[in-house]
């Protein structure tokens, strides 16, 4: 039997990756979903909706925040989690600290943020400082969610964001905590405080075989 040889043009129409390719790439980021906000009140990732995967397929999930720009000035970016119902109200205990530095005079600071942590609260968790709504001002960063499908353990998460603060300050904000529930987390919702609209992009990845 003659050997059929393929060239680059032979493969140009492929749209999916063979399982063996990603299966042999432990630790690889696998892009799941990109949501783009355009004067949106929220961006929500729900397992099984709009091709979103947020279950036991991956042990770790990573969200990337790219230039999230609030419509109103002086607004914090925030997250909440769904733990079985339809509401984003999982009970959370978290830490929040930050470093900041001013554009003009310097005068930096480094502090735990007692006003922005949670102790067994179902409220939204703040994960940035108050972003400006100037045309070039935004929040960028990332958040990791560990093993959301576990029905044994609470669900840990960690985020780091850099904010262009409303009064021209660079804020480096660290949040970590856990949803104190053993129910699976199957939805994650991102908003700005007071329900304000915003623009920008959030990407969801699974970390394969991590």
């Amino acid at each position, binding site marked *: 039997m003659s050997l059929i040889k393929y060239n680059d043009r032979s*493969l140009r129409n492929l749209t999916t990756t063979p399982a063996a390719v990603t299966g042999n790439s432990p630790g690889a*980021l696998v892009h799941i979903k990109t949501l783009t906000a355009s004067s949106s009140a929220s961006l929500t990732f729900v397992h099984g909706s709009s091709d979103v995967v947020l279950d036991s397929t991956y042990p770790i999930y990573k969200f990337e925040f790219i230039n999230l720009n609030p419509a109103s000035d002086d607004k914090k970016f925030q997250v909440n989690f769904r733990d079985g119902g339809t509401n984003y109200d999982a009970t959370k205990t978290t830490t929040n600290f930050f470093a900041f530095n001013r554009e003009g005079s310097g005068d930096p600071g480094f502090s735990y943020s007692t006003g922005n942590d949670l102790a067994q609260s179902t409220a939204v968790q703040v994960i940035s400082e108050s972003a400006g709504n100037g045309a070039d*001002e935004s929040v*960028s960063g990332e958040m990791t969610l560990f093993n959301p499908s576990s029905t044994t353990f609470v669900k840990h998460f960690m985020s780091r964001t850099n904010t262009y603060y409303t009064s021209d300050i660079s804020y480096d904000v660290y949040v970590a905590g856990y949803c104190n529930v053993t129910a699976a987390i199957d939805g994650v919702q991102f908003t700005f405080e007071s329900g304000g609209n915003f623009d920008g992009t959030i990407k969801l990845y699974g970390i394969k075989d991590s």
Partner: protein
Amino acid sequence: MAIRTAVNRALTAITALPTAAALTDGNLTLLTTATASSSATLDFTSNINSTYNNYLFKFINLHPSADGVELMFQANAVGGSGFNETVTTTFFLALHNEADGTTNLVYEGDHDSAQGTAYTELHGQNSSDADHGCNGSLTLFNPSSTTFVKHFSGRFSGTSSGDFERDDFPAGYFNTTAAIDEISFKFSSGNIDSGTIKMYGVGPKQ
């Protein structure tokens, strides 16, 4: 029609991945590896564009020729000249010495930038001892944007002069709406004796 099944030999003529986005979705795509050899700087002057939203730099055992020096970086905007973009940063660190006598968690006001145009610090007090090096990662968010300032954040672990572990956390933004297409790294004094910096595109192509 019979299914034609490819074997390894059938693919020997393939030289490039298909353009289908799905085949490169999500993974880190290695774009450039820069290896130092008594180098004054390691510069990335290509491949930073709108192909990817975010770019990740990995630092592997950067070793300075001089002792007690800072690893620093700067950017150049498209069409600009020189690595001198306006930058505002924060900088804090945790440290612990090998003798177990000193620990600290502190903001370093002398090592941040406030609308400066000089190279800004990523990791401090790097030691030139033969077995010491600086390692870490730095993410640059959406450098091709012509709307937003360019955020970045990093974390570096290194062995500082005096035999300290230093865990440094720089973050900030280049305060320009011009797209950034070039990045330069150097030590505050002397050369980058040895070491590697790898630059990856993060996620799917835009």
